[in-house]
């Protein structure tokens, strides 16, 4: 402690303070100052100054806190007194916050929806297909031209050469709008007809509700059996057990051996309007060389990434692709779809941010205006406070806090409004309020209040107390 005591040496010169330079080798003992007789002569006097100084600094610090609390209550009271004016003032901030949170909720809801319905390829599963999904129309056209479809030979090749997978299955499907399924004079149109390997029930989304899926025997014998989605069942067999019944798929009879659990709708389209038959049967009847989507299921997520790389390597080798060229096939995992989706959502969000920013700035300017008017109105009051000992920083803090509290209240109102709107939207579409949106909304509105309150507050702080007291209340 001794080494900085010399800095408290005072020189008496016209009432001003100046610090002497620190002496690095000062020792404890009477300080000789710099030959200046007026210097503080003893340690004890200097220590008294230090004690008083720290005590006063504590007072100053705690007084800021006390003033802050006082300012907080004043702010709430001011809001309460001028309800209509406060409402109009905060409109910009409220709208901005509400917009931000509602959009974030809708995006959040859609993200959850997408993750559930579309990106859900199955746990730890990825799909090898002719092209990469969800890459945009032009990319798809290019891929169709350049890439070769995945065929049974590729599937067999991977089955033999890929190591360590939990399951590898294949599905063949050509989306035709004229697939029909008939039973006793009734028809269901636009059915999704696919040929699957027997292990697709373990890999894919569908689950058996009654009956069974295909067996290896069915597969080997190219059996005329089918696994049917709920929409078909609801249409043909509302009250009768469908197992064992025969339906006509594109004119060809198949026996129902199993029924799937209901999956539900995605973006309004039903996922339950399908018929699955063994892939071998599909190859025999509908398409001689079926184009496949090969699903590889890993034991866990890390292994899935490893397997993705291995499949990529194997396929590139098989296609003799040089190092520099892109894949001429598509490896699709949940991330692929989520990435494409996030890009889309990102675009929407960017536009929203722009709108919200504009509203926030406008709202902030309105707050600044009202605070300026408030300062003018309360000039006399500010004079009173200054005469009682309020320093500039006390007045500054009072008005900044008022501005921030006002804006934060607007933010809070925006949050409540946004939650209500989101609940309504969720009934018709999808929206789920994420917690970070609420926090961002509140934080942002408070920050706007703080920032736009600085100018009026500093005007208030700079008022001359005598002039202010002369102003009429």
């Amino acid at each position, binding site marked *: 402690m001794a080494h900085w005591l010399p800095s408290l040496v005072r020189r008496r010169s016209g009432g001003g303070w100046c610090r002497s330079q620190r002496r690095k080798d000062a020792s404890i003992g009477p300080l000789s100052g710099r030959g200046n007789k007026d210097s503080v002569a003893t340690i004890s006097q200097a220590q008294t100054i230090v004690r008083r100084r720290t005590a006063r600094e504590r007072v*100053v610090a705690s007084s800021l806190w006390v003033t802050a609390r006082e300012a907080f209550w004043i702010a709430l009271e001011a809001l309460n007194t001028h309800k209509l004016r406060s409402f109009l003032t905060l409109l910009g901030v409220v709208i901005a916050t509400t917009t931000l949170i509602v959009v974030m909720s809708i995006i959040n809801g859609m993200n959850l929806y997408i993750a559930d319905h579309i990106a859900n390829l199955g746990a730890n599963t990825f799909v090898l297909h002719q092209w990469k999904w969800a890459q945009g129309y032009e990319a798809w056209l290019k891929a169709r031209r350049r890439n070769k479809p995945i065929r049974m030979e590729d599937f067999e090749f991977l089955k033999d050469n890929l190591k360590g997978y939990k399951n590898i299955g294949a599905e063949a499907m050509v989306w035709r709008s004229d697939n029909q399924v008939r039973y006793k004079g009734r028809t269901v149109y636009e059915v999704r007809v696919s040929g699957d390997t027997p292990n697709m029930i373990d890999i894919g989304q569908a689950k058996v509700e009654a009956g069974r899926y295909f067996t290896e025997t069915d597969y080997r014998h190219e059996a005329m059996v089918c696994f049917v989605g709920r929409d078909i069942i609801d249409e043909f067999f509302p009250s009768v057990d469908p197992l064992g019944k025969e339906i006509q798929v594109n004119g060809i009879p198949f026996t129902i051996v199993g029924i799937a659990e209901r999956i539900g709708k995605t973006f309004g389209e039903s996922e339950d309007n399908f018929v699955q038959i063994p892939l071998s049967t599909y190859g025999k009847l509908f398409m001689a060389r079926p184009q496949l989507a090969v699903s590889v299921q890993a034991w866990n997520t890390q292994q899935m990434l490893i397997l993705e790389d291995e499949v990529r390597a194997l396929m590139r080798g098989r296609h003799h692709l040089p190092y520099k060229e892109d894949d001429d096939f598509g490896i699709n995992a949940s991330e692929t779809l989520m990435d494409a989706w996030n890009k889309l959502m990102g675009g929407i969000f960017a536009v929203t941010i722009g709108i919200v920013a504009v509203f926030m700035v406008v709202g902030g300017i309105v707050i600044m205006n009202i605070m300026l008017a408030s300062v003018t109105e309360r000039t006399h009051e500010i004079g009173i406070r200054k005469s*009682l000992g309020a320093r500039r920083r006390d007045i500054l803090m009072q008005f900044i806090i008022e501005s921030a509290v006002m804006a934060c209240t607007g933010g809070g109102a925006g949050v409540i409004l946004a939650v209500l709107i989101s609940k309504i939207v969720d009934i018709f579409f999808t929206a789920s309020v994420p917690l970070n949106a609420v926090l961002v909304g509140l934080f942002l509105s408070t920050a706007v209040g703080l920032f736009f309150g600085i100018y009026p507050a500093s005007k208030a702080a700079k008022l001359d107390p005598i002039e202010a007291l002369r102003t009429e209340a």
Partner: protein
Amino acid sequence: MGSQAELSSAQEIAAPPDGTVIRTENLWKTYDMGAIAVHALCGVSFEIHRGEYVAIMGPSGSGKSTLMNLIGCLDTPTKGRYWLNGRLVSELSDDELAYIRNKEIGFVFQTFNLLARATALHNVELPLIYNGTPAKERIEKAQEALRKVDLADRMMHKPSELSGGQRQRVAIARALVNNPSIILADEPTGNLDSATGEEIMNLFERLYQSGNTIVLVTHEHDIAAHAHRIIHVRDGKIERDESVS
């Protein structure tokens, strides 16, 4: 931030203790109105000792308001020096002046100057808020001050619910709450009828008897006569300084 503390504590050591509460030396206050300089005060020097009851009297334009502003540390002189309680306050910064006002000066204004939307109690505790006194202590001291002016039963009333005399008493309680060195009253009865005015002047007498130093600024001789010493001011100078028994 610590400079005001350093300043006052250093000057406590530096200035010679001489028992005066107020000591002014050749105070000048000049306002620069472009081409013309207006001298509101022209070299005012006087002393006021602890426990005195002084009135500063003069017609409007005499400079008494300017002098009051200087004494109350609302302003600093253009020239000259002013020691308040041994501290040289005439060259302090705005923040330092605010600190001094809070601790040493108890203002009482002609127009009361209370916060209209706050209760009497809150009005009285305001100076304590600005020096960081915690809430419990604040309430106690404020209640004590209100008791001293016989308004303990009206603590939670707003100024609009109080009579003129009661409002002034709230203002006086506020002035007392920090135990200031001086009570500085500017035409305290100017907005009151004569009966209430007398009540207030009696209160000031009581405060003087309990040891407070009181400086009264007025243009009315009847009011000034309540004090025990009158400093007459005219044209920015002290005309006469008389003791009144």
